[in-house]
């Protein structure tokens, strides 16, 4: 097996045993990028020298017998929405084309403390708004399995980088499914932790009550190791959870006994792809064969999820994005009449169509006369959605469903139909509204040869058990070992 087709967990073990060096691994990733990224478009920014410098430093530390961090020497790609001091952070927006953050996000500092190699910055939908990465102001990202298909979004660059084995691990952010949906489309593992598990300090805000940073990986073990490194209370983010992070790796290989998995009646709706339905059924059968009890559960308000989300997320976005005023950082229009016109023209020039659409939607639902009917109403339904999950988790340990109603769609297929695009988040956004953790794992292939992901959702703070459940599936199947053609075996 080549270094690139080796899973992230095994790569970490080989680094630790001294069987491979970080320079070898990093160079292999850089080669994979230089040979294929012109066709995939996963990365917005790569600094080869900086990547190799970090790799060399870790190898030297190891050679000198110094203690090294838990991610020592493994390359990690980072979505271009997490500030890294001195590196570009465009958020896929023309507005922040030249923005160089003067400080690093807590996540970046944690990755550095863990001795990870920060490989490069990945493409995304502008300000993380989208489900296909087509809303990037800079480039399209292509699905590594089939180039005319989208990689999903908004963390499409991170998912495509891992899917095409340009990086064994990557960081993304998930506001309504932006890690789990592209993970499903690209055939990799992607996880959204419990809200507050990972600090949002230095994550450029989209919808603050829903945003959460999380890991992508070529396997569950690597994903768990990355999440472990990212997690923890941060005094700089007052919404981060002030509780110790459990050890996510200690019992990872130990199967869960007496597992109860819920299947949601309300998720069995029209419009779900046949291949997705059969892959999900087969995945549930795998759990059954591993001794799990499968139970029907009800989420009576699930059908209101998309509407609730597409009120709350744009409302928060319209408020958060008011910071882009042409004064403190980023773009400023050259020609304008007065101060107010400077704001208007700067924002008109700096933002793309989807960002404007969401700002308009959010401004409308927050405006006088409409706020109670839309925004406050959505917050109330949000509580009912959360209560549904709480009730369901009285009955079962986890909820299994497709990550997405379809495999990857074609680039251009949904871009002019915002509502259809939003509906592709129908299975994922409930976890953001409720604040619960969720993971997508490779669980099948469509007849067209595109990956299909299984989503598992768990109760708040149950990441360790959720990862163990995912690992059980991984140990029983080989979907995670399938790689697209552009990965040399």
């Amino acid at each position, binding site marked *: 097996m080549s270094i690139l087709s080796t899973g992230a967990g095994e790569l970490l073990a080989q680094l630790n045993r001294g069987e491979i060096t970080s320079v070898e691994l990093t160079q292999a990733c850089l080669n994979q990028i230089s040979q294929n990224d012109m066709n995939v478009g996963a990365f917005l920014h790569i600094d080869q020298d900086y990547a190799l410098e970090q790799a060399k430093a870790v190898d030297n530390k190891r050679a000198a017998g110094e203690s090294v961090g838990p991610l020592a020497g493994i390359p990690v790609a980072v979505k271009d929405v997490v500030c890294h001091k001195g590196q570009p952070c465009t958020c896929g927006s023309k507005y922040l084309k030249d923005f160089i953050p*003067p400080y690093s996000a807590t996540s970046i500092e944690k990755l550095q403390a863990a001795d990870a190699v920060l490989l490069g910055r990945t493409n995304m939908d502008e300000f993380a708004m989208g489900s296909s990465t087509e809303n990037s102001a800079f480039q399209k990202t292509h699905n590594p399995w089939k180039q005319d298909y989208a990689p999903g979004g908004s963390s499409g660059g991170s998912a495509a980088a891992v899917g095409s084995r340009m990086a064994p691990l990557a960081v993304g952010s998930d506001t309504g499914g932006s890690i789990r949906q592209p993970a499903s489309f690209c055939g990799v593992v992607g996880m959204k932790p419990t809200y507050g598990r990972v600090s949002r300090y230095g994550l450029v805000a989209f919808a603050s009550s829903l945003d959460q940073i999380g890991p992508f990986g070529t396997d569950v073990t690597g994903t768990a190791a990355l999440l472990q490194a990212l997690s923890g209370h941060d005094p700089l983010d007052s919404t981060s*959870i002030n509780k110790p992070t459990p050890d996510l790796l200690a019992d990872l290989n130990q199967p869960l006994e007496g597992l109860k998995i819920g299947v949601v009646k309300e998720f069995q709706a029209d419009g779900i792809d046949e291949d997705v339905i059969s892959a999900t059924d087969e995945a549930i059968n795998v759990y059954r064969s591993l001794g799990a009890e499968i139970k029907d559960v009800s989420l009576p308000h699930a059908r209101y999820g998309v509407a609730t989300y597409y009120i709350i997320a744009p409302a928060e976005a319209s408020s958060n994005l008011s910071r882009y005023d042409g004064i403190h950082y980023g773009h*400023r229009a050259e020609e304008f009449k007065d101060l107010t016109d400077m704001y*208007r023209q700067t*924002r008109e020039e700096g933002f793309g169509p989807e960002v404007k659409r969401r700002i308009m939607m959010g401004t409308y639902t927050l405006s006088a006369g409409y706020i109670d009917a839309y925004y406050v109403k959505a917050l109330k339904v949000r509580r*009912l959605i959360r209560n549904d999950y709480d009730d369901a988790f009285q009955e079962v340990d986890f909820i299994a469903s497709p990550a997405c109603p379809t495999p990857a769609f074609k680039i251009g297929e949904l871009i002019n139909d915002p509502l259809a695009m939003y509906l592709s988040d129908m299975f994922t956004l409930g976890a953001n509204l409720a*604040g619960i953790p969720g993971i997508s794992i490779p669980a099948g292939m469509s007849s067209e040869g595109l990956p299909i992901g299984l989503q598992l959702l768990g109760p708040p703070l149950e990441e360790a058990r959720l990862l163990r459940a995912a690992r059980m599936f991984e140990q029983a199947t080989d979907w995670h070992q399938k790689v697209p053609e552009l990965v040399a075996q």
Partner: protein
Amino acid sequence: MLSEDDIHKVAELARLNLSEQQISELRPQLSKLIDYVAVLEEVDTDEVEPMVHAIEQTNVFRDDIRSPPLPREGALANAPKTDGKYFLVPQIIEH
């Protein structure tokens, strides 16, 4: 269907200069979304408290300890216009 006037009003609140073409595209798109989200009307929420945040914490206190602020050059480094000390903005008050 939202009127053209509605779109103009919201664009003004959102501080966005929109072209006539953008407005004619946004009108049906936003109207469709507004119609879609109206489905929430059928949910009885009379006795339900709004849920503002996923993890409901209140009063997160910390000790009042001084720490070094972001240096001025760092804060100004990305600004479109500065004089090296301050952010420069267009004239706000008429003489």
